[in-house]
């Protein structure tokens, strides 16, 4: 065997277990789901309708609303969260910081607990006579209570706040771990050259962390396009359907209404297409490969 051949085979050995398992437990069901997306009907009474379900997407006002809402979350929320997580991880990586473990744990904690519990408390915080309004009124930032859950605009803001609050600490983990792999002598050299803290952040940290930033932004895109928990638990998609997400619509089609598994699968594939487009754009922007 030539050396090249050998390396190639070795490489496949490393990945084979994962490839087999993912094919079995993801791609096989995915193919069945695609097959399902070409059928329509209720429950198990399904007929082949070809691409009829896909055409239905474009005239389905619920679907269009859900896509619009989800895009708003995506465009506003993902950048804010990524930047916040980066800043926090750099701060929490500092040698001089005391009580590091406590700060880190506190900021990580939101993503640990099931949202079922937090949602009860979140709704108290953001109720019309809740603590948030009380605080803002007391500080004279607003002069009448904001309808955090009842107003179509502010309800979206509440959802964005909730996602950011819950997932920033999660993304911070990836940065924190990656920062350990940066050779600190690079920073020392920069310090000798008289670089400022901000300069080091933009010139060294960000470029070196680029693969991880790409990873988190793609994962966050996927997470946001599949957003479900927050919407389901905090606003139930309301008021009206002002905060409904695509995944919540899939849930409704499969379980809340008379189950239409075919159309639900179609909407799922619509999500796949959107994520592929966004991920491709991000890979391109990051200039990977």
């Amino acid at each position: 065997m030539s050396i090249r051949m050998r390396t190639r085979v070795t490489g496949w050995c490393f990945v084979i277990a994962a490839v087999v398992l993912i094919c079995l437990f993801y791609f096989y069901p995915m193919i069945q789901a695609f097959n399902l997306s070409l059928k329509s009907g209720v429950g198990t009474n399904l007929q082949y309708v070809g691409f009829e379900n896909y055409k239905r997407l474009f005239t389905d006002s619920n679907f269009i609303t859900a896509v619009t809402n989800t895009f708003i979350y995506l465009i506003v929320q993902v950048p804010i969260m990524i930047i916040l997580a980066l800043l926090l991880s750099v701060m929490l990586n500092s040698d001089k910081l005391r009580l590091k473990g406590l700060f880190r744990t506190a900021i990580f904690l939101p993503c640990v607990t099931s949202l079922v519990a937090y949602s009860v408390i979140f709704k108290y915080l953001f109720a019309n006579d809740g603590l948030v309004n009380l605080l803002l009124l007391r500080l004279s930032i607003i002069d009448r209570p904001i309808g955090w859950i009842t107003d179509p605009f502010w309800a979206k803001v509440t959802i964005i706040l909730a996602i950011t609050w819950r997932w920033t600490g999660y993304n911070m983990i990836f940065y924190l771990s990656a920062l350990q792999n940066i050779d600190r002598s690079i920073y020392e050299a920069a310090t000798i050259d008289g670089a400022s803290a901000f300069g080091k952040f933009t010139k060294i940290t960000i470029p070196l962390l680029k693969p991880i930033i790409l990873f988190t932004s793609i994962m966050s895109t996927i997470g946001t396009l599949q957003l479900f928990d927050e919407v389901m638990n905090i606003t139930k998609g309301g008021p009206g359907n002002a905060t409904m997400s695509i995944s919540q619509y899939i849930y409704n089609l499969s379980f809340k209404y008379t189950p239409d598994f075919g159309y639900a699968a179609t909407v799922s594939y619509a999500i796949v297409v959107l994520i592929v487009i966004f991920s491709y754009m991000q890979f391109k922007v990051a200039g990977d490969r």
Partner: protein
Amino acid sequence: MKKWLTVVLAVMLLLSACSSGGGNKQDSSSGGGNGGGDNSGSASGGKEAAEITIWAWDPNFNIKALNIAKERYNKINPDVKINIVENAQADIIQKLNTGLGSGTTTGLPNIVLIEDYRAQSFLKAFPDMFYELTDTFNAADFAEYKVGPTSVDGRNYGLPFDSGVTGLFVRTDYLAEAGYSPDDLQALTWNEFIEIGKNVKEATGKDMLSLDPNDLGIIRVMIQTAGKWYLDENGEKPFLAGNEALKEAFQLYKEMMEADIVKPNADWSQFVAAFNSGDVASVPTGNWINASIKAESSQAGKWAVVPIPRLAGQPGSVNASNLGGSSWYVLNVPGKEAAADFLAKTFGSDVEFYQELVTEIGAIGTYIPASTGEAYSAADPFYNGQKTIADFAKWTEDIPRVNFGAHTYVIEDILVVEMQNYLNGKPLDDALNDAQKQAEAQVR
């Protein structure tokens, strides 16, 4: 190279050993009993009278009722092992839909509790998966309004359970401050209810009721007093545009909002908090709220229950309605005969059993012969000695029968949006017409 293959193989072996090892332990510990069809191939012939599995939600209500039924049934038939599994309602729906949707019977229970609003949707989507109960109990013994949702083409698939009969729970002390006594509230219209609400607010500063803008339960209660629903009489076509009862209900909803007598809530806990903390003067809802109201024991003696208001503009409207309520269904999997027998001998015919349900857990059934029993006429000190169970049983008989059909929640999601539009100034007829169009596009 060979070294490599061995490593990969070893890893794979390890994996399968781990997973099957975990599985093995599990299986032996449970004695292989996980409902129905699992072992259909090998064992179903062998153990005929074996075991039935039941899924239901709410530990303080349905599960307790099942436990009482199990105890009583095992006295007459000790051979059947009854396995009661508690799952949240939303979880049951998800599990059942996934299991049924996959077209297999593995892992399905023998008996499942389904909310009446959803029953037709299951029966329609999975027609072969439910076991017909027509000859196992006498449907005429149950409140008439429960029979519609539980049957298809005159065949009974569900055995009716709890009554969702509504009442207007009122704070007598707040009403007294505004000059009303429970006797004044016996046959209210919703318009009168709003007037009282305004006076109560003026006298006490308290709101009249608390509503969740995402849940139109109160609209359903209102239109059912007039025998109307979101769908036509056959439960097939959406009936929103031109539905006079629905129109009146929408107008009343807006009036309530504009009269500023509604405290908004965002979920169940806030709804419960509204009356537990004494922020509202009334709770128009199903009798099942009883336990939550009584949870605040310091308010004992301050509550009464009066009939639900009716719609003034609808000729057939009565002071009785329904909200929620569910029934038992037997799945078409091995063990169905035993399951049907269990239901028939307990929920289907046992008058004594229903007395126990009332005294033990305050659950009001819809089995008419039971309502003459002693437990039904007990006075409740929390409500100043009012015979609340007897009242609810009486109102249950008056509930107009409607056909819930299979689309209650699809249509409600559309109406929630149009309700917001209407509250924000969209003309009512336009709102309902638009809702009708959307509903027709979705329901097919």
